[in-house]
């Protein structure tokens, strides 16, 4: 594999970002981005899962029977997601109450299975680690960017802290609190990214 970690990271985060290139993982992108704190927990969960599942699938790639390779990947991904779920529930129960249903859905996040199947099952653990990290960071970058618009416009806060002079100038955009707000933001972000970051 000629790809260096640097190339893998650049591709995964920018030019081949799974969210705006393949429109993968948008269920959670719509659901958890109205508050930045929720988004950050979700991103950490996804990064951990993509990295760990990629490395594990890569380590086992020569031992996995072909006909059960998908079920094996699901088993590996589901186990890591359950660990993430338990840890968030134990350390931040209030955030878990809100993002809990979506943490479970990380299992079905197509980015993770996509990277395990397309990259980790054919590459060594070290490049697979970087590929998982890149996919997770790419996903996180888009989610954080959306949350950084939705939370200030929807709630007048950033990470729960009021914007300066909020009482004077701020007016609530209710749509940013609701999932359609994320649709608009995702559309705008995809537009900008494809125009500026992607060379067709």
């Amino acid at each position, binding site marked *: 594999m000629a790809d260096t970690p640097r190339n893998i990271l650049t591709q995964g985060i920018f030019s081949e970002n799974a969210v705006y290139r393949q429109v993968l993982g948008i269920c959670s992108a719509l659901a958890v981005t109205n508050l930045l704190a929720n988004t950050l927990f979700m991103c950490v969960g996804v990064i951990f899962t993509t990295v760990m599942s990629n490395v594990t699938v890569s380590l086992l790639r020569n031992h996995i*029977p072909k006909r*059960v390779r998908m079920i094996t990947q699901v088993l590996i991904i589901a186990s890591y997601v359950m660990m993430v779920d338990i840890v968030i529930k134990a350390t931040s129960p209030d955030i878990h109450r809100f993002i809990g249903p979506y943490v479970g859905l990380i299992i079905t996040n197509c980015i993770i299975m996509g990277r395990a199947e397309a990259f980790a099952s054919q590459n060594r653990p070290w490049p697979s680690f970087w590929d998982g990290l890149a996919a997770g960071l790419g996903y996180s970058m888009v989610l954080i960017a959306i949350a950084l618009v939705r939370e200030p416009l929807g709630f007048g806060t950033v990470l729960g802290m009021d914007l300066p002079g909020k009482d004077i100038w701020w007016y609530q955009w209710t749509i940013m609190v609701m999932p359609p707000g994320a649709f608009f933001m995702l559309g705008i972000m995809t537009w900008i990214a494809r125009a500026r970051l992607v060379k067709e």
Partner: protein
Amino acid sequence: MKKESTAYTIFFILSLTLFFGAGVSLVHHLTRDMLAENELMHHNRTLIKAFGLETQGSSAADYLEAVENKLNIRKVVFENREWEVYTLKDQESSPVGFVFKGRGIWDVINGIIVLEHDLQKMLSLEFLEQHETPGLGARIEEEWFKEKFKGLKVDWDNEKKHRIIIGTTAQPDPENQVDSITGATQTSQALMDSINRELDAFKRLIQEKQILDRD
């Protein structure tokens, strides 16, 4: 053993399941105490909120202290179930609360209902646990929805399943009715059925065990 043979495949999947099953169990075991503490704090905080009480701070110890100092807690076994009944300490004709257990469309819906002493009106509804669809049924936990139950009349003269009504009704009696959640008709219906069933059982409990008469 050949990699593609059935015996190897079964061996591989079994080993992997055991390994990861053990991993998840280990993480669960290591966080067990934290989970139990969180559960207790959530219960106490919900209870304090349902009764509209104040606490010194917002730590688990503050909520526990407030519950111990301000509430009478009675555990009563009635109709094969353990009920928790709460009243305010040192107050005559205190509001009375209890933990209700119901079912939504996906899983259980549990929470706390606080009623006036004479059981004629609901004072608050708070949820301890629900797993309804995020963005739809799960909106029962939002403040604007719970707010509607404050002061809601419980129409004991009505048939059992319509003492409180969530949604539309043929009878124009807004005093015991709140609007259902748009897009979550089934959750609203399930919540209504659960609350009415629990209210009925709770009234029987109060009458048979004469709990409020002893205050």
